[in-house]
């Protein structure tokens, strides 16, 4: 009977959509809890950023900061490094597309200015994107984007700072997603190297009896790479929070859509059931009447 077959088919689809909905809802909840954790990590990392900026600012008066190899710009600007932070996993709405599009625009601008571009990718999505387009990658880091540790930032920092110092690249941009709020995440670009000396303006001079060990210049030598690594770390954390927020939104939309589909299918299934019952009754009535009239 056609009615019963259709009904079976509808019920099967309802079951399958329901199980999908369970998965998307679970992913939504996981993402929501990870946003909080990522936000806490951003907050926890802030005191270090403030203090290191203040110390460098004060040291900047003591020694010639502008001449530091990581602050003084290279004389010729021929090759530019771009670090793009994406996620390893998909199902995060437009998160990866947005940041990759931003990076692509930046690369085009640099290209139009006659500079070569070197790409560094964080996250499988950036790796896949650039590989698909035949763009050579200097290095790829994966497995850190959803819960970045400071050591991850150090790994990236050492590579790009090394390339900068060895004159393989003359500038480094960092493309990350800034977490403004749970509803708004903005693809952003900051210049990582050379460090902008203006950020260290306005320090207070050290009193003359200050004790340094080793001398101020050597301390600065060690502080500036830490500062760069910390900017990277902050970018990784902001991106992680944004990734989870995007995923939560995408999964919430998926869960809601599944709910709508289930409602529609249930309605169709009820109709089919009703139709099957009506057919059955009319068949019985028809059969009874045929028996009665044949008597």
């Amino acid at each position, binding site marked *: 009977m056609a009615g019963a077959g259709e009904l079976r088919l509808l019920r099967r689809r309802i079951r399958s959509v329901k199980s999908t909905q369970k998965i998307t809802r679970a992913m939504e909840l996981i993402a929501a809890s990870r946003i909080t954790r990522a936000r806490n990590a951003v907050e926890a990392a802030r005191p270090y950023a403030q*203090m290191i900026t203040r110390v460098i600012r004060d040291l900047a008066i003591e020694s010639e900061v502008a001449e530091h190899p990581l602050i003084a710009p290279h004389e010729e600007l021929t090759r530019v490094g771009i670090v793009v932070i994406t996620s390893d996993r998909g199902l995060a709405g437009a998160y990866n597309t947005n940041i990759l599009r931003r990076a692509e625009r930046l690369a085009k601008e640099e290209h139009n200015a006659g500079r070569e571009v070197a790409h560094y990718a964080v996250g499988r999505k950036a790796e896949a994107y650039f590989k698909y387009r035949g763009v050579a990658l200097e290095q790829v880091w994966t497995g850190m984007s959803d819960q970045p540790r400071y050591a991850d930032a150090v790994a990236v920092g050492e590579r790009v700072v090394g390339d900068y110092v060895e004159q393989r690249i003359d500038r480094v941009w960092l493309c990350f997603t800034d977490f403004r709020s749970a509803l708004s995440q903005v693809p952003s670009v900051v210049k990582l190297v050379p460090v902008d000396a203006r950020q260290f303006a306005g320090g207070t001079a050290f009193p003359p009896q200050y*004790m340094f060990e080793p001398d101020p210049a050597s301390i600065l030598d060690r502080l500036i790479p830490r500062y760069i690594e910390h900017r990277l770390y902050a970018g990784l954390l902001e991106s992680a929070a944004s990734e989870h927020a995007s995923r939560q939104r995408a999964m919430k939309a998926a869960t809601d859509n599944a709910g709508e589909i289930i409602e529609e299918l249930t309605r169709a299934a009820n109709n089919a059931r009703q139709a099957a019952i009506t057919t059955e009754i009319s068949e019985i009535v028809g059969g009874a009447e045929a028996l009665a009239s044949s008597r």
Partner: protein
Amino acid sequence: MATMDVDVVSAERSLFSGEAEAVFARTPEGEIGILPGHQPTLLALTSAPVRVTTAEGDHVIVAVHHGFLEVRENHLTVLADIAELAVDIDVDRAKAAMNRAIAHKQDPDYPGNADAEYERALLRLRIAEGHYTPAT
């Protein structure tokens, strides 16, 4: 006894914030102990424990893997690259990390920095085993 404000922060989080009577740390030149009213100072730290004697007389031991120490106006700040509170270190995990580091040191093809790993593992293990806990 006089006290000073002490903050110990690592790149990832703040580990200690409060009043202290003394702080002991190690620079490339050697051990240094800092008491309240110390002259303004900026030091580089090596991989070593930082010991804080709190106003209550407790000892807080932190494994600091390189960083800086700053004193100004009776406020002491430790900026650590990587740091861990001694109480958070698990002896078994520290031992496992030590064995891994030794294996990495012997592996000529190991891509990471095996010496730095060994240094970190050694410090963590020593702290976890209580080498730096002062006798009370």
